[in-house]
């Protein structure tokens, strides 16, 4: 780690908010981008952003200076993304069908489709398509969805994703295959 980074970390540990900000502003756009792609909402992305950096701030005391700071930040980011999903799920009325939809069954989200029926976006075909893609994404497990968005939309390498999620590259590949297979299944009428 760069010496100036270590110095900033030490200042931030002492409660210097300015030093902390200087430290994390090198990575925070990337964090916000990951979150925004994952939740596809600017408000939710900002929530995740804040949660990530509060955790970083509180965790600084325990952070080992010999490990890579950016890796640590992105690990926290993926953790917050994955748990954020479940936090929202608890509030949303998700049908049991959806929770159990581990196979590629056709049990898609009747409730959601009904609730979107009055949405003006359904006017155009493009909007209809993007709604369907959004729904299809929500059929994926949080981890599959995160891996897919990191790979497909943001072009992270498989080993980078593995490091962020603290799992093997093999697991990332397997989850990515499953994500692609399930998405294609959901969207077969369009492609």
């Amino acid at each position, binding site marked *: 780690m760069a010496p100036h980074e270590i110095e900033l970390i030490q200042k931030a540990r002492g409660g210097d908010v300015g030093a902390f900000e200087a430290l994390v502003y090198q990575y925070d756009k990337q964090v916000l981008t990951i979150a925004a792609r994952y939740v596809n909402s600017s408000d939710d992305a900002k929530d995740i952003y804040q949660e990530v950096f*509060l955790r970083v701030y509180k965790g600084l005391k325990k952070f080992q200076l010999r490990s890579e700071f950016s890796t640590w930040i992105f690990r926290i980011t993926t953790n917050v993304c994955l748990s954020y999903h479940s936090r929202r799920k608890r509030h949303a009325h998700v049908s049991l069908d959806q929770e159990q939809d581990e196979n590629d069954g056709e049990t898609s989200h009747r409730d959601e489709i009904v609730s979107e029926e009055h949405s003006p976006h359904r006017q155009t075909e493009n909007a209809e398509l993007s709604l369907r893609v959004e729904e299809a994404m929500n059929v994926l497990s949080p981890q599959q969805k995160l891996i897919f968005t990191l790979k497909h939309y943001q072009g992270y390498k498989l080993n980078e994703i593995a490091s962020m999620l603290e799992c093997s590259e093999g697991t990332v590949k397997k989850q990515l295959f499953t994500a692609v297979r399930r998405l294609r299944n959901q969207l077969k009428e369009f492609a």
Partner: protein
Amino acid sequence: MNHKQIKELLPIYLYGDLTADEAKEVQLHLAACGECRAELESLKAFNDVVSNQPAVEVTDKLLNEAREELHTALRRETIRHSVFEKIVEGVTGIFTPRYQFASGAAAALLVGIGIGYIFFHQTNVEQTKEAGTSLATETSQSNPQSAAADFLHGDTRTDNLHFLNLDPQSGQVEFTFDAVTPMRVKGNVNNAQVQKVMAHAIVNSDNPGVRLKAVNALAEQGGSVTGGRDADPAVKSALVIALKSDGNPGVRREALRALLQMPFDKEIKEAVLFVLLHDKNSGMRVAAINGLELTSHEKRMNDADVLNALKKKMHSDDNNYVRLQARTALQEVSQ
């Protein structure tokens, strides 16, 4: 690799994540296998469909909003932390025999306070070790005590128990835990220790009624809280936190009232401007305008931040009445 394995690899191939050798093998197979070529085309079509998905754009504006919100949260976090440390000092003070409360209680408040390990470590409470007790505790290496055992009675709740050591041979155990003891604190609201306990309640109580009472007690005392001197920074910080972030407008209103009675400084000015610019409650915004108008008059000051905030509100507040008040205040202040 056989046909099935190659077919599985096609998504990774499209993402460019195969090694050079693997990619070459896939290309060779594709040249010879119609089914895999068709699969590749189908995958490309799928990729196009998914890629067209509109995304939330991370603009500089969005990034700056996120940074500002984080900044507020971090400030809150550091203030909360320092207030808590002061409270621990203050409360441990209450239990030392030297300390006497002022009589003629003006405020009595019942609060639960978590102090934990540090508390037992720092206090010198008289020990009465019960004979036959099997729980031997050590709260400090240099100074063995059984203080913790004595606190495990009555209303004390324990939480966050962590074992540090467990030796089955000797039967020695060592652990830490948080003890939460409801305490009755009775004292004059002018008393610095009492104020600290109330400051703690303002920031940490889940009960809006408790928060309101605590802020109210500080506000009621008015100028006498500070006695003309500077207000206790911990108390002031707690009131600022309440003003800026308490979910209950009644608590915010009382916090504003209490702060406006303290010597008007930069911290208080910023907090009041924050309310004027960000509080969703129009009544709070009007109260902030009135407060600024009054203090500006008394101090005969012409502060640029105040003027700018008032101008901004005069033009763009959603609420008619707030705009009007801002205009009037601006005329008064800039005279």
